[in-house]
Every structure is written in C-alpha cells, then in structure tokens.
C-alpha cells in the first residue's frame, strides 16, 4: 500500500491534528479499492504509517461487512433481502441468481466473474427490489432487468 501514501497524506491534512486513528477506515477502503481486498502486508504497512495498534485494524476488518481480506469475483452482486425488498420480489431475484449462476450466496462463480451475496437494507426501499453491483445500485429490479444486467457483467 506504500504507493498510496501520498494520497493518504493529502487525506490526513483534511483532518484535525491527532486524528490519525480516524484514517483507518478511509485508508482501508482505498487499499481495498486498489487491490480488491486487504492483504496482510497492507495491514503491516498501515500499522507503520498510522501508528495504530495492529489489533485495531484486525478488528475493523472483521467487523464491517464491506471490508474483505480475500479477493472476490470481478463483480460483486449483492441483493438486499430486508423487509421492503422481500415484499417486492427479492426472493425471486435471489432464486433466479442461484439458478442462473449456479452458486449460493457467499460463493463465487468458477470463472471468477461474479460473487453473489445477500445484504441487509441498502436504503433504497422505495425502488425495491434492489441489487447492488460493486458500488452501483440497480433499482426496481425484475427478472428481465436482472438478466440484462448479468449479460453486461463481463
């Protein structure tokens, strides 16, 4: 992660003095954006750069659902299964994904293309059911729109 340090220095300057600890989340996010996941060597580098205890970073990585220590597929297909999405068809969406991709939630297709996850409320209940692919919300999903979306995921 050393090549990201110039960026992190700019980020640090936006915070008051003494806020090094706060940099853990944004730095982890940026590292993951860059590598696809957070490697053990990244943790070492971040401990050295920020001067925070290693355990703090380990705790952060094991707590937040968006952080991961292993690579996943190129496309992270996340379906919300909370109340409004369930009431508007999320279960059919999930069943279709399981069927079409031949994987269960938590798994990745053998060609490394897609990882399928179920997630909790995304804050898009008015356009349920919602599927999040990487950073993008795909709202008011239907089986047809889902098939069209999957086609575009190379």
């Amino acid at each position, binding site marked *: 992660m050393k090549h990201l340090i110039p960026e992190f220095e700019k980020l640090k300057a*936006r*915070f*008051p003095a*003494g*806020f*090094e*600890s*706060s*940099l*853990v*989340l*944004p730095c*982890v*996010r940026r590292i993951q954006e860059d590598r696809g996941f957070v490697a053990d060597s990244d943790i070492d580098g971040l401990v050295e750069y920020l001067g*925070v205890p290693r355990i*703090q970073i380990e*705790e*952060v990585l094991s*707590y*937040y*659902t*968006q*952080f991961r220590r292993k690579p996943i597929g190129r496309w992270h297909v996340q379906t919300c*299964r*909370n*109340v*409004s999405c*369930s*009431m*508007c*068809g999320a*279960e*059919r969406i999930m069943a279709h994904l399981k069927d079409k991709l031949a994987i269960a939630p938590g798994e990745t297709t053998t060609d490394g293309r897609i990882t399928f996850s179920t*997630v*909790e*409320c*995304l*804050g*898009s*209940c*008015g*356009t*349920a059911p919602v599927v*999040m692919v990487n*950073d*993008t*919300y795909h709202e*008011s*999903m*239907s089986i*047809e*729109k889902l098939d069209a979306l999957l086609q575009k995921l190379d």
Partner: protein
Amino acid sequence: MAGKQLLMTFPVTATSHTLADYRARGGYATLAKALAGMQPEDITKEVTAAGLLGHGGAAFSAGRKWSVVHLNDGQPHYLCANADEGEPGTFKDRWILEHAPHLLLESMLITSYALQARNAFIYIRGEFDLPYRRLAAAIEEAYEAGYFGERILGSDFACDVVAYRGAGSYVCGEASGLLSSLEGKRGYPRNRPPRLTVQGLYKKPTVVNNVETLSNVAGIVANGAAWYKSFGTAKCPGTQLVSISGHIAKPGVYEVEYGYPLTRFLFEDCGGMAGGRKLKALIPGGISTKVLMGPEVEGVTFDHQSLTAAGSSVGSGGMVAIGEGTCMVRLLQVMLRFYHHESCGQCTPCREGTGWMHRIIDRIVAGEGRPEDLDRLLAISRWNDGTTICGMGDAAGYATIGILAKFRDEFEYWIEHKRSREEGRLEMAIHA
C-alpha cells in the same frame, strides 16, 4: 402535497443539487446573515425556541442538545451529521444528500458557528455511493466558493468539513457507535453518561444530529422560530420527510407536515395500496417502531403525540405499508435475522438475545415451533428493554412485541399446523 412544505420546496432537476442552483434559490444568504449579525448563543436560542426535534428516530430537542456544549471552554467542539441511514424502510435522508447537499452544508456551517465547532463531519453509510459523490462534489464547490476554510465570508469563523464513509454496520447509525467508527474503530456504541455533548469524538464535546434535523436549521435561522412553529401542530411543530415503501402504490419520499391525517397520506398522497388490496398493517417509522393494524390507522395524525397515543411512534420516517395476504411470521423472521446480523456483540442481552430470537423464529418457520416460543420471544424482548448499551436491543424487542401483540394468531397457527396461514407470502406487488 401532504401539508405545507419546508424542505422539498423546489423541483428536482439535473442541476438542482448544484451550488449555482442552490444560490439561485437564496442559498448561503442565511450563513451570511448568521455570521454578520448573530452570536452563537442567539442561534441556539432560536433553534430551541423553534422546538426543532431530532428527525433520526430519537426526537430529542436539537437546541437542548446543543446547549450542553459550553461555549468558550477552551476545548475543541465537533459537529457530526448522521447520514448513516440504515433503519430498514428508511431512505429519506438520502433525498437530502442527493438533491439538497448544499442545504445540509449551509445548515452545518450555521450549526458549527453556533457550537464553536472548528471541524464538522458527515458520517455517511458506505453503501451510499452516489449520495457520497454528490456530497463530495458539493463540499468541493462550497470550499471553492469560500464557505469552508478560514475567515468564512470575511468573518473570524473558520470551519472544515470531512465526509467520512462507513463500511456496513447498522449500529454506526447510533450516535455513539457512529463516533467510535469515526475514530477509526469498530462501531461500538458507548454507555452514557457521559453524554456525547460532554465527551464525544476523541472525548471532546460533540453534537451528533441527523441529516434532516440539521437541514432544518438554515430555514429556522432565516425565518425565525415563530415561522417554524407555523408548520405542524402546537405540540409538534415542523415537518418530517417520510420514505414510504412496501405494498403502496406510489412509494417514495414525501414531506409530511406534522398533524397531517395518516389515512389521507396513505390513500390520497401515496395512491393507496398497490393493486387495490386492503392495508393489513402499517409500520410507521422503520422496523423498530411498533406495527399498527390497518384499521388502527383511522383517526391517527402524523405527529409524535398521535402516533404515541396509537401505541407506536414517528421513528425514523421509514414507513412500510403491508397488504392483505402478507405473512407476518416471515416478516418478523426477516427483521430478527437483521437485528441478529447487526448486533455489535458488546453486551450480553443483545448479543445473546437477538441470536436466541432469531433461532426461535427460524424453528417456528421450519415447522418446529413449540407453544412456549411466543412467550419466550416476549420475555427476551422485555429483558432487552433498557438493559443494553444502545437502543438496538430494545428495538428488536419493540418490533417483536408489536407484531406479536397484533398478529399472534398467525404465529399460533404456524406452530400448531407447522405451516403459514398466509402461504408464507411476502411479495405482493411485483415489477413486470
């Protein structure tokens, strides 16, 4: 329109979120007025007099919260906007982040001035990518225009803001959990006292307010407390952004003036139930509020007093309409799975309690329910009430108590017959 509007007062266009459009609507004139002619304590007095309550779910008086921060105490003070919006059913703060970010920023500047906060933060949930980018762009525009930084608008007031992204955790929407996360750690809520306004971010006095709560500040300072009190009711001034979803015909974000009749909102403004079905149940303000049966909505007005009297509450503004034929057992199962997943694990009643409740409901749904399960769910709910570090333990209890109180017969049916009385149905309105 569900009554008089305060926030949703402009048409949403491709550019309505930009600085240029916001300035054309009179934006940042109130900041100028505040910095030129008002003392910090005057602003807090005005906001207190207006009766502005929190719009995130706790409904605590904003002005009273601010007044705990001692001005000129030689300590840094911090302001933090809570944009973690994670209560299932809620998506109304997102409207502000995407369409009125400058309203939030101007309001935060005024509030930071009132609190003598040199640094402000906006904690935004990690999943909100587009809202974050809109916010980040607005912050850049505001800095370029000189609204942040040193000597703002020629005054002695200086303020910096950082938009801080979460990474997936419901309890980071709880004010103390939010600050733990903002310190770069797990989002563990904290026991209070001390209050966050005494020891918050890095143990310094910190005000955490919901995005919508803060967004009301510019209007109050521009037009005065009396103006704000002309909206809503005598006991409940102002408006609330309500996000409605579920089996409703016209889901979306609406601004509802407090005191507006709930049936009128549901059946006129929101177009009634999709497919013309009957309203079986209504969750008024996020899944952590107690459910109302369809007929109970009659005569209720949308405000704190009326909803509390009806046995529920305004909550987070996340309204969910449930149509006839929906299985309430499976609905509670979704909720209990959620609370269990989101438990941070710190305290025994919540960590063990939510797990236990989840296992019980799963057993019921699997056809292995026992007669004593329902009273057990209620007992765990009662044990969690007031014994947990944060309100999530209580919330899992309220959701359960509410649904069991109104729909116990469906649960008893499933336990006895080992299947749903409603064919396990959750989906009703579907997209083609």
